[in-house]
């Protein structure tokens, strides 16, 4: 009991979700179909799963819950899936991603690739309240890892 008592509510929530996932959905995750949207995964668990560094609002990474993700290098696809509990994952870089997150109330962006975003980008994201993660994984690898964590694809799904 003690270890669970020490864990945050988010982690307990993830644990509960994972148990349900194991029973009903895990097989389908590896079959590339999406876990059901609506299950909650804590952002700091996602950061850990992607081995990502948190560039802005590290404190919020512990409180933000993610219900869906979208991994894409196309702005329209990211846009159509963006929402207040969606993680957007991309190899793109540029201020327009911050604007997109701002317009769609997206709580978190995960930038992929070896290059760190510019200081201007980080400042802009911090200003609008978006948590920015950066990971070395490629787009497909990141998407697979997120599916394995139980994060479903956002509303529109892959085109």
């Amino acid at each position: 009991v003690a270890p669970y008592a020490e864990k945050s509510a988010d982690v307990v929530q993830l644990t509960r979700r994972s148990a349900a996932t194991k029973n009903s959905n895990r097989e389908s995750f590896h079959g590339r179909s999406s876990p059901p949207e609506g299950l909650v995964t804590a952002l700091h668990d996602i950061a850990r799963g992607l081995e990502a560094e948190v560039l802005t609002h590290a404190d919020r990474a512990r409180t933000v819950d993610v219900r869906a993700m979208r991994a894409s290098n196309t702005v329209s696809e990211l846009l159509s899936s963006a929402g207040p509990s969606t993680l957007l994952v991309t190899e793109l870089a540029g201020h327009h991603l911050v604007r997109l997150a701002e317009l769609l109330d997206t709580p978190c962006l995960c930038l992929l690739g070896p290059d760190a975003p510019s200081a201007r980008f980080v400042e802009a994201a911090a200003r609008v309240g978006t948590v920015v993660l950066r990971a070395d994984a490629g787009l497909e690898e990141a998407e697979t890892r997120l599916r394995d964590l139980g994060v479903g694809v956002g509303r529109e799904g892959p085109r």
Partner: protein
Amino acid sequence: VITFSAPIAGGDYASGGAASRGLKAVLVEARVDPEAVRRIMIAAYEAEMNVVIHAESGSLSAVVSKHAAIVEVVDEGPGIADLELAMQPGFSTAPPSAKAIGFGAGLGLPNIKKHVDDLRLESRPGRGTRLSFLVRLAARVGASSRPPSAFVEGLGAAVVARPAVCVATSGGPDEGATKNTEGRSA
């Protein structure tokens, strides 16, 4: 009824989305349903970035009532030669500079169509393009349970006429462009 109007600078990627951000502030202040705001923002940002990518200049204007938001994006750009082709997913004439940052996949106009309740697109090659869309708003507490049929059924007239009212109210450099557009469609 709330009106909004903002200019759009062609080619200015850094400022792209500024007009949509202004519209969002208006919608949030008016306590528009968040899901409707989301749909409007998807369509408005796509339309605004089309101006940034393809045109010299343009404007975004909107009229928001209890029952619907009508948004019009007008530009003075190269226009669209084949509207049906432009609506096909995957068709794009965006330059490599836009594609390099994730735009120009040919999904913008289909994305707009998918998220709005009505869409109008008019263009004159060499002159410019006008895109108008309507998103119905959920009834709020104390509001009528459904929008007046005349408003929805008369969308065409509303789309054409109301942005002109909007521009006349707020003024700004885009006034001429909207008037010209209205004249073309009359």
